[in-house]
């Protein structure tokens, strides 16, 4: 309810160019005037995402193209960030690698958030033994390192993208479930839920129509805060050779390949790591800014 009212605050103009201008203004307003961490994070993330989206058109080289005469060359006019041990352009490899890293992390995050939110909301709605079981499960799952879950799945089923995503989701949903349950307990005591119940709405309808939409903001900020962790874990699994498999290559796999040559060309190690760092940091900063704003609002009310 709160969400829909905030969206319809301004009357949306009808003609196409006006609507575009309105959208741009809304987007700008979302960034300016917020906490400084959110502003910086949003700008950096937008840049990274734009580059990754446009990669097939703006990448200077094919990431697999080998220029064996130009191995381990430093930054220069032809290769902005230099070349790796096989003479492949580092900048192009960074751009293509980022598409794997970021999309895998985003998919696991989305899955974790959706599963966790639904489980948390229903757990709070149901209460009793179901709630107890769900909460104890999250308590214990949260303590299991997700790398160990990944190793377990890889030992049982072998490597692959599905395995990677599953490994990070099995434990990843728990913080969302905890958060959603807490929020849902609070929302469940409000009058509009009582009204919906009095009208004879089903549990499922109430959860999806009223409970979850009203808890979206905090869940979203938790999602932003968890993204960096996912990105780093995915890269870490690739780094030990269990994540993204050749010929595909993400930032973690690039770091692994760079290992033997790092003394000759430190940039080979620094560049992919910096890419992970900058991306993870920008998303975390957005989450932090959102969280602060929410806290301030709840403190004020």
């Amino acid at each position, binding site marked *: 309810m709160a969400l829909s009212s905030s969206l319809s605050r301004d009357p949306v103009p009808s003609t196409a160019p006006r609507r575009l201008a309105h959208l741009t203004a809304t987007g700008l307003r979302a960034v300016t005037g917020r906490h*400084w*961490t959110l502003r910086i994070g949003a700008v950096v993330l937008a840049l990274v995402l734009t580059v990754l989206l446009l990669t097939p058109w703006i990448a200077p080289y094919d990431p697999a193209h080998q220029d064996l005469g130009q191995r381990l060359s430093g930054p220069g006019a032809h290769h902005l960030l230099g070349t790796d041990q096989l003479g492949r352009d580092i900048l192009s490899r960074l751009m293509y690698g980022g598409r794997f890293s970021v999309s895998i992390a985003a998919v696991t995050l989305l899955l974790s958030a959706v599963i966790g939110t639904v489980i948390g909301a229903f757990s709070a709605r149901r209460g009793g033994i179901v709630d107890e079981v769900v909460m*104890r*499960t999250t*308590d*214990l799952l*949260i*303590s*299991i*390192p*997700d*790398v*160990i879950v990944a*190793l*377990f799945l*890889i*030992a*049982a*089923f*072998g490597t692959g993208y599905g395995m990677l995503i599953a490994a990070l989701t099995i434990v990843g949903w728990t913080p969302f479930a905890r958060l959603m349950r807490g929020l849902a307990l609070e929302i469940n005591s409000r009058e509009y839920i009582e009204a919906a119940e009095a009208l004879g709405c089903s549990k499922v309808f109430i959860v999806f129509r009223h409970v979850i939409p009203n808890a979206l903001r905090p869940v979203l900020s938790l999602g932003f805060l968890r993204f*960096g*962790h996912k990105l*780093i874990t995915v*890269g*870490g699994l690739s*780094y*030990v*050779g*269990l994540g993204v498999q050749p010929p595909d290559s993400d930032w*973690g796999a690039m*770091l692994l390949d760079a*290992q033997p040559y*790092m*003394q000759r060309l*430190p940039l080979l*190690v*620094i560049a*992919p*790591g*910096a890419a*992970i*760092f900058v991306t*993870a*940091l920008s998303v*975390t*900063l957005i989450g*932090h800014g959102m969280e602060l704003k929410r806290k301030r609002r709840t403190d004020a009310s």
Partner: protein
Amino acid sequence: MVRFIVRRLLVLLITLLAVSAATFAIPYASGGDPVRTILRSRVSDQALDPSAIAALRSELGLDRPILVQYLSWLGRAVRGDFGMSFTSRTPVDQLLGTAIGVSGTLAVIAIGLAFLAALPLGTLAAMRPGKRVDNGVTLLTQSFVAVPEYWLAPILVLVFSRYLGWLPSAGWRDPTSIILPALTLALRPMAYFTQVTRAAMSDVLASPYMTAARSRGLSGGQALLRHGLRNALLPVMTLFSLWFAGLLGGSVVVEVIFAIPGMGRLVYSAVVNHDVPLIQGGILCTVALAVLITTVTDLLYALINPAVRVRDGAV
């Protein structure tokens, strides 16, 4: 309280049973036939001798019903017997014992480092909310969370062991070889400890008993040390055990980079070498430890908590 404890222990038991069943099933999931999996890991040959398969099957007792196999495996696992490691021909429990010691030492040092750095940083930030110090600490902790350890570690090695030659780049024999991995591991817990310290400390600073202490004539520093710190520590302390449990088996990447013979690297190499008994033992052991530590922390916290509330009210 008794009901609480019993319920927690029951959940613990069920979880451990579920995890043990899952680890037991590893060789069945990968190829369908564990004997083939085992033989393939030994001879790495597709053309396997059928008589060898049959011999190994009866030797390992794999021709019995699966539930019987699981129960006898579980019976031995409870006593710490996971069989022999394929690759090193050593009993798995021996390997696990030494590895837990190594990982435990590393985890304790890393968490200690993190705590020592986090306490002053978090307190400083809490004392000047919204000011430059606070913003600086925020940016620092957010950056630390975003640093991949497999990026920091090679850079540290490059600087401190290749260029400067001060510290060994890998290994575990030398006490100085602990420094780089401990630093790498300490970064992320440090960031989280700082955030929690800051939050706890700003709650404490806003509390009436701090105002009371100040009005009794204690200076800001005295009040902070005698009343503030003590009350802010508890939430940080409970984080310790969670991180300890996490680092015990979860520092796979750092242990691999620095060639540290700990749990993470042991399980990792077992997975890479298809060393089934070691994988089963390692994963079950890691998860059991993590779950056990969490449950014990929960119980301890429940024991302490009422006392804390009484103390807070009395001050």
